């Protein structure tokens, strides 16, 4: 076995491991929580923890998909690479969170089961992340709102009694810091740019701001778990307001988007944008049940 290149050494005749592990980038993805202690801490309800991990995991999965849609469409190659990087981080977080969900409720559902085999009404992401991409200003506006809120949330979750969730959050804090900085730099550049970029950046903020509130509106599961997101509202709005002002833009005064009979994304009530997106995300897995590639 040579040390020159791992992939070459793995494909050498007779090299272990046999079978699919030779093609690790393409098939047989291992459990992203392989061998991690999955015992539930005392006092944490498995069903609630699973539901919560699905909420956070679905946010990350759906936004990752929206970011990947920018590939071949971004204004510059560097931005395309950046958006793909951000999407990859979020996809990784989603894999961990969805795997933890299937463990915590005892269902044994895998990340693939949860990502590919649920209908749109079973997804628990906030509606902000599923909205169609819009222009680049909307892309960075959504990133700024989401990354600022998720960064603040992960900082708190890093102390969660469930050590798996805590570890996912602790890792994510540092990744989200880069995401937020990326979004912030573009909001500043576009807001404090030309009259045209200023107007389009303001339009993007105006369009997305009403969806922000859903991230701070607690679901009953969050209240039972003691992770009420409403405590994030004030600090996150203050942080966002500072960026918006620095970018010479105006903090929108829009009313939060209405719920449907008190229900929204966290309850599985979504916009029309989610279904087509999931159809694309899931089509191969559904066409070839159980296939690995």
């Amino acid at each position: 076995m040579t040390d020159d290149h791992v992939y070459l050494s793995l494909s050498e005749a007779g090299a272990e491991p046999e079978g699919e592990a030779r093609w690790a980038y393409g098939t047989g993805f291992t459990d992203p929580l392989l061998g991690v202690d999955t015992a539930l801490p005392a006092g944490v309800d498995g069903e609630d923890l699973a539901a919560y991990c699905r909420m956070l995991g679905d946010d990350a999965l759906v936004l990752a998909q929206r970011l990947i849609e920018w590939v071949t469409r971004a204004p510059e190659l560097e931005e395309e690479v950046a958006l793909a990087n951000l999407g990859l981080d979020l996809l990784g977080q989603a894999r961990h969170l969805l795997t933890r969900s299937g463990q915590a409720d005892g269902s044994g559902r895998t990340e693939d089961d949860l990502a590919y085999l649920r209908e749109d009404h079973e997804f628990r992401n906030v509606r902000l992340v599923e909205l169609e991409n819009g222009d680049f200003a909307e892309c960075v506006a959504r990133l700024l709102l989401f990354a600022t809120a998720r960064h603040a949330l992960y900082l708190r979750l890093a102390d969660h009694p469930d050590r798996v969730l805590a570890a996912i959050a602790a890792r994510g804090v540092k990744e989200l810091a880069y995401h937020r900085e990326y979004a912030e730099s573009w909001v500043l550049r576009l807001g404090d740019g030309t009259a045209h970029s200023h107007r389009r950046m303001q339009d993007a903020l105006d369009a997305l701001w009403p969806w922000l509130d859903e991230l701070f509106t607690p679901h009953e599961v969050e209240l039972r778990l003691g992770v009420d997101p409403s405590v994030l509202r004030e600090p996150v709005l203050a942080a966002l307001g500072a960026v918006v002002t620095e970018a010479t833009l105006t903090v929108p005064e829009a009313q939060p988007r209405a719920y449907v009979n008190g229900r929204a994304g966290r309850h599985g009530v979504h916009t029309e944008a989610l279904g087509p997106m999931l159809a694309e995300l899931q089509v191969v897995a559904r066409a070839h049940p159980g296939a690995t590639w």
Partner: protein
Amino acid sequence: MVTVLSRNRAWEVAAAVPDPELPMLTLADLGVLAEVSEQDGAVTAWITPTYSGCPAVAEMAADVDARLRAAGYHEVAVRLRLDPPWSTDLISAEGRRKLAEAGIAPPTAGGAPPAAGGLLRLGPTRRVVACPQCGSQDTEELSRFGSTACKSLWRCRSCREPFDRIKEI
């Protein structure tokens, strides 16, 4: 029973596995290999993923498994350890030297990701990064996001060469 001698050998086998994306570095140089234990010939190796979405983690696990089996261990388990999270501070001095030698600027020791809550100001990059090709400090960041999640893309204004830099996490 655990024997120090054989545990050291299993560690050395696992520690010598090259990183899939940065093959000039071993998993030990990178600080990804957290622990290796051996009991009655059964070996368990723990590795800590770098970024959440790093696709090389499955490859690392498969390769550690393969190397340990090739070294004669028949009962091998590779497990992930998420806590504490991996940090670029775990890259060894040797690892930093090998990165620079390969033309990749190593991360600053003790360097931190973007500050929480600090207001960003646009302007020239303040961080001084030496060009790994010519050593000049007249370099600029082209993009915070590079060819992989762990790297940013830089350019040297002296020798004109672009280069990757491992970003702090």
